[in-house]
């Protein structure tokens, strides 16, 4: 855990689109996923994807590998329960403009041993450093006639709300930290497992594989992963969102039809 209250995360540092980048001499990392596309169908109960890779290290200096997987960003609304006259009531919703729908890190050692606080914060590696978008000053936005408070990252309660997002997502297995999730199967060859729960959002996921030496990032490999609904599940979902009224009418007709059939088949006395 972090002792001092961490300063807010630095502004976005866009991950480079190149696949493998060597920054220090010939030290390089390359990685791939066993499955770059996860299909969500009726039997979907979460997925486990293996990420494997290799470290090209001409020297004998020890290196650390950190895998970061980030799901698509989406706004998060939170309410806080407060007690009024013995009854627990919800506060006005507070809005974060964007937080990853899924976030995990796996590393060879605990992150705090791999690199310093500032370095991790700059790269946005680790749940304590993950970037949850919030503006400089708090303001209210009105959506559908409801006033939301957009949380400011300079506000004093920012950290409470931020920790709450992380805690709730960790409880739902959407955010994960695995300090020994990267294992070396052979010299230079490593693997890590990405566990997606059944509630993982659909969309494009970005994986970053960082190579650290002496607490400094020495290389990174970027991968993408798509989680998408397929088959019947996607058809139903898209139908329900594109033609919502037709979908609703069909649902009712289906229900009434089954009710009618049941009374015909079973209702004989």
């Amino acid at each position, binding site marked *: 855990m972090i002792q001092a209250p961490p300063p807010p995360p630095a502004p976005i540092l866009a991950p480079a689109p190149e696949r493998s980048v060597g920054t220090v001499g010939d030290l390089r990392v390359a990685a791939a996923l066993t499955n770059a596309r996860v299909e969500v169908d009726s039997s979907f109960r979460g997925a486990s994807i293996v990420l494997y890779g290799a470290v090209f290290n001409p020297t004998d200096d020890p290196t650390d590998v950190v895998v970061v997987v980030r799901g698509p960003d989406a706004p998060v609304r939170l309410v806080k329960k407060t007690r009024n006259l013995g009854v627990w009531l919800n506060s006005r919703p507070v809005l974060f403009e964007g937080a990853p729908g899924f976030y995990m890190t796996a590393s060879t050692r605990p992150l705090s041993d791999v690199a310093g606080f500032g370095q991790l914060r700059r790269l946005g590696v680790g749940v304590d450093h993950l970037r949850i978008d919030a503006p400089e000053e708090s303001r209210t936005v009105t959506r559908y006639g409801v006033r939301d408070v957009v949380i400011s990252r300079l506000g004093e309660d920012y950290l409470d709300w931020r920790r709450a997002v992380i805690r709730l997502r960790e409880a739902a297995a959407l955010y994960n930290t695995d300090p020994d999730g990267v294992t070396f199967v052979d010299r230079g060859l490593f693997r890590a497992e990405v566990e997606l729960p*059944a509630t993982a959002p659909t969309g494009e996921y970005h994986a970053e594989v960082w190579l650290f030496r002496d607490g400094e990032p020495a290389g990174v490999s970027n991968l993408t992963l798509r989680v998408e609904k397929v088959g019947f599940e996607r058809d139903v979902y898209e139908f329900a969102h594109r033609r919502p009224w037709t979908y*609703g009418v069909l649902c009712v007709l289906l*229900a009434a039809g089954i009710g009618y059939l049941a009374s015909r088949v079973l209702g004989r006395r």
Partner: protein
Amino acid sequence: MEIYLPIAEVSVNWPLLILLGAVVGFVSGLFGIGGGFLMAPVLIFLGIPPTVAVASQASHVVASSTSGVIRYSGQGAVDFRMGAIMAAGGAVGAIGGVELFRYLRLLGQADLVVSVSYLVFLGAIGLLMLYESLTEILRRVRGEVAPHKERRRPLWLYGLPWKVRFPKSGLYISAIPPLGLGIFAGVLSAIMGVGGGFILVPAMLYALRMKAGVVVGTSLFQIIITTAVTTVLQAGRNQTVDVVLSTLLLLGGVVGAQMGARYASRFKADVLRAALGLIVLLVGIQMGLELFVRPSDIFLIAPGVADG
């Protein structure tokens, strides 16, 4: 045995859902109610988002009420004219209720309103039913004769305009009270995901003084229309109806409902009412308790802004 629900976006054990549908269907057939008030709390407990649970189970209510109305109309026990007027009110109430629910959901207050409505309505109705049926049972056990009840309707019922004749219900009253009842049931149907039968039946019996024989069939008829409108609106406005979830529930539900209807004749009416009153009261208390118990985490993810 797990199945992934496309709209709720969680995976659940499907035999469990069919079983739940069957149990609720059995209760609903036994007591002649929709049973929605039992279903929503269990679905929420299973991890289905409350908004999806409330919207999807409405179509379970459509199915069980349809088979109920077919049975009752065969016996001539549905007053379609009364039902149509109440259903018109129900549709208006449902439209308002879905909009209200959408607003409350965005405000983050939907669960508060759901809990309070369950506590207030179910608590009050449960207590009344329990009290009324227990005194009747006591009287029967002691062998006393029931005191002659005054069969007089409240006088204001006659002072209102737009009088309509309802031959089947044996009434000649203004259309305003049934319309108002329908509107009220429609709002409840959108907010609590229930048909509202547990409120309509006593109101039709004690306030309107309809003929007892047509009350249940007529209330079921009005429930079909109201919940059908609610389902379409929830799907069209909020996209929260999960057809896989509701189909699983109603497959069990229709079978359970028929079984329940058969068993109903084996019990005395007052015993059934006492049991139903107890169930209603317990569900109301259980849903209301969360208002007073310290939550495990004081922060909660609020729904909304899915579509920006």
